């Protein structure tokens, strides 16, 4: 025993020397090389290309050309779909998560819901598009059931699964579970004592939510909504599978640009990508900042 006690300080004393050893960085060199080659450089060069003419000279032209109606409208549709699916996913996900955490439901429901959410949040891309065509398409099960049972054809209302609302409903399939997965730990952080204190002071459910729970939760709620927003903004496979290239969202426009230079200007394509990085970067940055804020209370 004394021997090990003695050897511990010895090795600790030896450590710092090794740490100052300037060769330690060699161990992480492969990682940084990989990150540079397949993450930082490709993205960085695109961003530089956004400020260049085809001959390599500096310009703001590409950024200015982004403000043409067809490109602006693709950004607008993307932003609208992302916002709608983020808000819907956040609202329903919040209700679902609070039902399981605070609603007094049987205990076994919670791990079950978490498992289902884990699956559903990863069930995206083309298969998800196929599933919603089979559900809400013209001959989908739900469409036919509504016609047969209630004589109500959703397509007579102008609804189409290959449109804005169809895509939003489809995105909700992975947005809601993602919200539940991220928000549940935050809801766990709401201490029971706070509710009891509020009750003892004569506060009702409204007072509790308005003055205690919501002020504590809002960074988590807003932050997660922003994460959902960025999540659907960068998505393409689901939209492509659902609508082909008929819905003009920015990822599909960029896909067509990479495939066949539909904008007839390589550098304008780079500017298109730059705009996307800016939007997803800002919303993710805000998410990280808000997550830091929410952790102040929810521990």
């Amino acid at each position, binding site marked *: 025993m004394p021997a090990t006690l003695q050897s511990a300080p010895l090795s600790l004393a030896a450590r710092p020397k090794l740490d100052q050893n300037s060769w330690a960085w060699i161990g992480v060199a492969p990682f940084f090389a990989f990150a540079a080659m397949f993450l930082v450089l490709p993205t960085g060069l695109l961003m530089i290309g956004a400020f260049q003419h085809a001959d390599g000279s500096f310009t703001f032209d590409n950024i200015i050309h982004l403000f043409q109606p067809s490109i602006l409208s693709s950004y607008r549709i993307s932003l609208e779909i992302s916002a709608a699916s983020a808000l819907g996913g956040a609202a329903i996900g919040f209700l679902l998560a609070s039902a399981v955490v605070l609603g007094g439901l049987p205990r076994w429901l919670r791990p079950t819901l978490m498992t289902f959410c884990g699956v559903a949040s990863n069930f995206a891309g083309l298969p998800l598009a196929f599933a919603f065509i*089979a559900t809400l398409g013209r001959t989908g099960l739900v469409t036919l059931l509504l016609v047969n049972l209630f004589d109500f054809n959703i397509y007579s209302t102008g609804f189409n699964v290959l449109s804005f609302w169809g895509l939003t409903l489809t995105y909700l399939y992975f947005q809601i579970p993602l919200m539940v997965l991220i928000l549940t730990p935050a809801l766990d952080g709401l201490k029971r004592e706070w509710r009891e204190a509020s009750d003892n002071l004569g506060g009702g459910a409204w007072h509790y939510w308005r003055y205690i729970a919501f002020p504590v939760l809002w960074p988590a709620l807003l932050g997660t909504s922003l994460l959902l927003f960025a999540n659907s903004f960068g998505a393409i496979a689901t939209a492509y599978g659902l609508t082909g290239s008929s819905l003009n969202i920015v990822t599909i426009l960029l896909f067509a640009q990479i495939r066949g230079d539909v904008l007839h200007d390589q550098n304008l394509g780079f500017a298109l990508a730059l705009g996307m990085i800016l939007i997803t970067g800002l919303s993710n940055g805000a998410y990280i900042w808000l997550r830091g804020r929410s952790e102040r209370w929810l521990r």
Partner: protein
Amino acid sequence: MKRNRFGAWLALAIGVIYFFVPLIATFEFSLRLRRGTYSFDAYSIVLGDPQFQATFGYSTIMALATIVVGTLLVVPTAYWIQLRLPRLRPLVEFITLLPLVIPAIVLVFGYLRIYNSSSWLPMTGSVWSTNLLLVFGYVTLALPYMYRAVDTGLRSIDVRSLTEAAESLGAGWPKILFTVILPNIRPAILSGAFLTFAIVIGEFTMASLLNRPAFGPYLQLVGANRAYEPSALAIIAFFITWACMGLIQVFGRGARGSSADTR
């Protein structure tokens, strides 16, 4: 209190409906291929399609390669950061989160720009190097999940003591990594691996833009040209996702159980 609980059940009911109705509808749709009666014809057509077998096999190999390359990249890095360079941790964590910020389509756009066939490193110039580029792209996409899984695994064991014990017994670095550290975080690596598999197997954007015969582009082709087969494929894809998530749960639980036993 009663009203409260009613609201909770209502929210849960909406969630359950939203989750199950599309699955039931997809399954029903996939059985409709033969007119007037339900049959599994769509499944036998899909499973018997040589294209399905070829693309699924290709994507499986890509996924396995991604898991191997990702593990070899992430485990030594996370280990080294934990042991020797904790100062770099915030930077490394930031880098591993970048793939969540930069959309996959932008990444592959960048690859096509700097690794195209007339560039300084023409990776898209031949089949094998394009495959390699695709694997590296997938490693990048899986990086946030893989790194987090491995980092959590490393935090749950005493890396320093294990390393010192192995060192004092005369083990070199490769031996420490592969026979001491790796087995101890195997559950973490496996959960990262299954998640990676679930991401890679149906990936569409990168495979399609790099023109590789992967499962994702095949799904797109079938989706554009067939009526009932896509639903059958969606059901198959759903079961693959289930299997991956289920295996993560199994191995995650096994990890906690066994480490509690040994301590």
